[in-house]
């Protein structure tokens, strides 16, 4: 992969990337550099509240300060200290824990001499094989696919910010997608579901928890920390910046 070493973004590259984007989103005219500068200037001076649409002068925040809209009290600007570094750290940890959570046995069940040991992937395969394809697909997406995709996308965005590399178009797409996935990653809800199912099964069989269970438990904690380390506004501000 070609690395772009200039700070901000390489404008020749921007044109190329916007054409690429245009094709993806079926839009013809890529924005001109002048247009991008105008947008950049507008956004250096003003900021609008996402919840109530009030426009404010954009404040300069000290690290760990945040700004709240006076009208609706929504937090509209944050400046998290060492956001990129912490995001990358948590996402690397999440990736390792994710590998643990899917590859090791999750639970083991024993009843009258018969035992059954499953990993999360086995569990989804069992559902799919028992003609519950829809349920299997919903579970695979919400528990395995979306969290993994989100970890990878945030790692990609965080890493490039961390290395002070250009945060140009591909990062914008990645971060947009990562934002969209946020409500659809449900590993933590799955864990509560598993705990409830343990109680339900309790009297019927002996259940023991495997390493993947603890891996998944750690994963949801680390992912929560990772999500709170991400500083949206800084990331978008960096992506928007034109030298």
């Amino acid at each position, binding site marked *: 992969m070609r690395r772009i070493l200039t700070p901000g973004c390489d404008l020749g590259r921007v044109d190329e990337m916007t054409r690429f*984007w245009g094709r*993806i*989103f079926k*839009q013809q005219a890529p924005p001109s550099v002048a247009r*991008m500068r105008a*947008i950049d200037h*507008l*956004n250096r001076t003003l*900021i*609008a509240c*996402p*919840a*109530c*649409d*009030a*426009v*404010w*002068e954009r404040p300069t*925040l000290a690290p760990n*300060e*945040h*700004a*709240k809209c*006076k*009208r*609706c*009290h*929504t937090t509209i*600007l944050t400046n998290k200290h060492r956001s990129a570094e912490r995001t990358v750290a948590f996402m690397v940890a999440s990736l390792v824990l994710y590998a643990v959570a899917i590859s090791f046995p999750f639970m083991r*069940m024993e*009843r*009258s001499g018969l035992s*059954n040991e*499953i990993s999360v992937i*086995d*569990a*989804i395969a*069992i*559902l799919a094989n*028992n003609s*519950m394809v*829809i*349920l299997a697909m*919903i*579970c695979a997406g919400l528990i395995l696919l979306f969290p993994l995709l989100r970890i990878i996308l945030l790692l990609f965005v965080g890493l490039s910010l961390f290395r002070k590399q250009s945060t140009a*178009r591909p990062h*914008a797409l990645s971060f*947009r997608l990562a934002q969209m996935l946020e*409500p659809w990653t*449900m590993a933590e*809800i*799955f864990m509560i*579901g598993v705990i*409830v*199912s343990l*109680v*339900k099964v309790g*009297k019927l069989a002996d259940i023991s928890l495997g390493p993947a269970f603890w891996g998944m438990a750690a994963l949801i904690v680390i992912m929560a920390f990772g999500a709170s380390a991400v500083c949206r506004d800084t990331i*978008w501000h960096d*992506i928007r910046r034109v030298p």
Partner: protein
Amino acid sequence: MKTAKQAGLARCGSCGTLTDRPGETCTVCGAKTYVRRPNSLQRVWAFWIAGVLAYIPGNVMPIMVTQSVAGDSPSTIISGVIALIHHGSFEIAAVIFIASIVVPVSKFIIIAWLALSIQRGWGLSEHRRHLAHEAVELIGRWSMIDVFVVAALAALIQVGALMSILPGAGVNAFAVSVIFTMLSAMSFDTRLIWDGSTPEAEGLNVGH
């Protein structure tokens, strides 16, 4: 204070970039920009109706079937809660009851109330409605618990002829209902709540 709409600007819903040409593609993230989400309330109602329609079979049809030597015993969400109470696990019964019954039903009511309050122009507190919407967005996902309970049980309890648990058709309907309700809440443009109010405050609250 002005709103972006009054200033002739639009805030990109995805990256927050302000643009002076609403309707164009955001130059920063590639999303479509608009002053207000187009047909927001129509989308809200469409997903709402789909959610309510799917919620009915989700509750009426069995969400899982326990097959054992004694025969098949299907159970619905409610019968599962009652069984848990009989076993004495009140906390777990409460979790399931709240996640599968209380949360979805109150979500339907709150979303409908929000949409109606805008369509009918009810002069209700903006802050209260805003908080209600935030609560719905935050708690809504947790209704999926019961779906994952069934998935975990069905995957784990597979001991051949002795006993096995199969998911029932109700669980699909229930999962789809939760997804539609989440989409309904997401389609709601909170700026519509504030459009009716007269802003007077000046400046931002900056602090730690």
